[in-house]
């Protein structure tokens, strides 16, 4: 790693934006460690949010999933599961935090825009303009079994519904003119005549007619986040989002390629390049020395990918039950059965193709890896490992070359997993001038340096 020459980069003044992603449901959160706290106790959420706020993070994110994952014929038991409704949890955190953004992952398929827009606007007002909405879609009928609406959406329609949903939501948020409420109790009425509009929308997916019940917040309305990685998802983000998540934040060239792709889509959508913040998800393992960091990362991977977890991941890839096999032995000799995706396990994290298995075999053979080691090495790249100074140099390079605008950090331990990042990494970044030394605004939009909401 070489020290970046701050004068010889595209963005010498870049500042990183950090978010913390409280994932809730996944195998990346280590629950077996004695320091691992409750995943539902409000104290856990408060600790993480306050630590992030102490570290001057832009945002605290909550994930969402509307049906418990299943595997091998029942509820998936191996990973952390069970979490609060995000807007409810964040409304509580609004009372207990001062500055940090509060971002809810909420689904456009299984919500209605009049209701969800109102909830998000309420969170935005209660937090003084710190709300964000990570827009997600679902199409599978399996999740729909939890809803009176059922699984009614074709795969191809999910982004269309999401886009129409956002259009209605924005109309709801912008339904009140500035100064719509009377200045004094002597006025003829509480609201200024004509200042409160009506939203009537008839589209393919919605037929609504409502009177919005809330004014714009200190930031106008909630900041829009989007995480789709497909071309369709990226285009959706380029047209609609203020922030895009991605899985492209580990390898510099990959991150830069993603950022350039997104900027191209932004131009095509007629938006300026600085209208969208790129915050890849990442995991950060810090050690006092490179060796210590590597050892810690090894421990983290082995805790995350227990033999049972490795067999579970391999079972989903191979398409049949491998429990009972030896995860520390070789890969299964059988060919995979490529099954139709049934939606029961969130996203297809590892791909379900013969190509993937062929690649696994080749690399496992070449390196002498066991099944578990193969899962660890070839699973999704999980971020950055190093010393505070080394990581700060690396992150400065990412930011100054425009490969990222920041990172959305998933702590592998909850609630204490951010402590090292805030106490050790943030000061190194501040010293290099790539991280704020104080909040300069009060709203999430201001933290992110975004233009006022329209």
């Amino acid at each position, binding site marked *: 790693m070489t020290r970046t020459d701050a004068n010889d980069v595209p963005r010498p003044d870049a500042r990183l934006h950090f978010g913390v992603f409280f994932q809730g449901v996944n195998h990346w959160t280590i629950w077996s460690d004695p320091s691992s706290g409750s995943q539902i106790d*409000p104290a856990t959420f408060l600790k993480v949010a306050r630590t992030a706020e102490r570290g001057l993070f832009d945002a605290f994110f909550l994930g969402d999933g509307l049906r418990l994952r299943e595997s091998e014929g029942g509820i998936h038991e191996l990973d952390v*599961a069970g*979490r609060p409704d995000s807007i409810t949890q964040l409304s509580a955190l609004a*009372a207990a935090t001062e500055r940090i953004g509060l971002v809810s992952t909420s689904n456009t398929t299984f*919500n*209605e825009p*009049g209701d969800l827009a109102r909830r998000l606007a309420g969170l935005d007002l209660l937090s003084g303009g710190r709300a964000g909405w990570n827009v997600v879609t679902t199409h599978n009928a399996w999740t729909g079994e939890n809803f009176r609406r059922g699984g009614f959406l074709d795969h191809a329609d999910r982004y269309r519904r999401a886009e129409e949903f956002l259009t209605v939501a924005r109309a709801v948020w912008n339904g*009140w003119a500035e100064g719509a*409420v009377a200045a*004094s109790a002597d006025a003829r009425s509480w609201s200024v005549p004509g200042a409160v509009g009506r939203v009537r929308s008839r589209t393919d997916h919605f037929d609504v007619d409502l009177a919005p019940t809330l004014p714009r917040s200190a930031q106008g309305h909630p900041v829009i986040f989007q995480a789709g990685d497909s071309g369709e998802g990226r285009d959706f983000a380029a047209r609609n989002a203020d922030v895009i998540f991605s899985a492209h934040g580990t390898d510099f060239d990959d991150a830069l390629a993603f950022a350039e792709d997104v900027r191209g889509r932004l131009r095509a959508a007629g938006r300026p390049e600085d209208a969208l913040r790129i915050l890849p998800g990442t995991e950060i393992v810090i050690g006092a020395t490179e060796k210590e960091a590597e050892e810690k990362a090894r421990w983290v991977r082995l805790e995350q990918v227990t033999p049972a977890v490795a067999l579970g991941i391999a079972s989903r890839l191979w398409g049949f039950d491998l429990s009972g096999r030896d995860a520390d032995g070789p890969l299964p000799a059988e060919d995979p059965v490529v099954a139709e995706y049934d939606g029961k396990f969130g996203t297809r994290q590892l791909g379900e193709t013969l190509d993937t298995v062929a690649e696994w075999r080749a690399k496992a053979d070449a390196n002498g890896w066991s099944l578990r080691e193969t899962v660890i090495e070839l699973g999704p790249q999980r971020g950055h490992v190093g010393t505070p100074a080394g990581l700060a140099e690396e992150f400065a390079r990412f930011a100054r070359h425009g490969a990222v605008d920041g990172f959305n950090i998933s702590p592998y331990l909850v609630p204490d997993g951010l402590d090292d990042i805030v106490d050790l990494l943030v000061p190194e970044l501040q010293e290099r001038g790539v991280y704020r030394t104080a909040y300069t605004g009060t709203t999430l939009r201001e933290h992110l340096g975004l233009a006022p909401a329209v």
Partner: protein
Amino acid sequence: MPRPALHLAVEIDGDGAHPAAWRRAAHSPGELLTPRRLARVAAVAENAGFTLVTLEDSILPPGADGGSGPVGRIGAVERAAFVAASTSVLGVAPVVATTYAEPFHVSSQLASLDHVSAGRAGWVVGAEEDPAAARAWGRPVVEGADALAREARDGLRVVRDLWDSWEDDAVIRSVATSRYLDRSRLHAVDFVGETYSVKGPSIVPRPPQGRPVVLARPGLVPAGLADVALVGGATPAEAGEAARAAGAPLAFAEVEVALDTPGESARERIADLERYSPWQPGPNRLRYTGPAAGLVDLLAELAGQVDGVRLRPLVLDEDLAVLSRLVLPELFVRRLAARPLPGTTLRTSLGLPRPLSRFTTDGAATPVREETR
């Protein structure tokens, strides 16, 4: 010490029960929709010693005062969660209607409210009676008392079953077997109603109270499904009759109150607001107008008839102050009511047992009677 006779709840939506209450509020009209104002009202209610606040709601604007009143309102669940985090002993019960909402979401929201409040959540079961709510939701209209009751009942059944769908000890963190959950302690609810079905289980672990406290007016939902009936009655005796007829474990009488303040009598304050719009009495509901001492006497009389009251103050900023200085302290001194104790759940404050999950598989536990169908 004998159990206090009367549980005290207060409705804190908007600026008060009178449609023109906003004209006498101690803040500028727009301040109504700020967190500062909400936290202040909640603090006053908690410090006064109320056991519970309720929060009215609808997707439609409040729109009282002949259309000239406030048309803004933050969602009750969001307000309740915010209040829960800014108080420590106060119970918090938002109104939520399942007329159009997804019961799965409602269950998650209320379970989460119970988690963020460490067991202080309640739920006032509501119904969206105005067909305009269907258009705001974008859903087919539900019309008529029977259909509204059906959606309230089915929604409540689903929500309760989802709360029960995680047994208390479903999270096992068994490192030896590599399992975080024990799937045998998680249950599909497999609800099939007249208009929809819901699979389950919940995505939220079981609430600290097992089930948040359910409050409902008689007739909207089957008596066996509510913990607290919110009853009317134009006199204490009538309220007592309604309470006994309701068949719920507890019954609270609805009481509208307008109190004399140091500067003005209750009648003068009402007359001032009547210049703008009339204060229509709630259907068949007690209303008290006058000095604080008279309200104490009325509540003492009610204590023999009902388990609690929900007060609906004329103007929150004025009447809450009198309640907190002159009414509640007197009730506490006379042992007619008690403050909720720190660290207790709302159920405990109300003397309600913590229900076992009806799906419980623990052989030593007392099975929960199937009372929903």
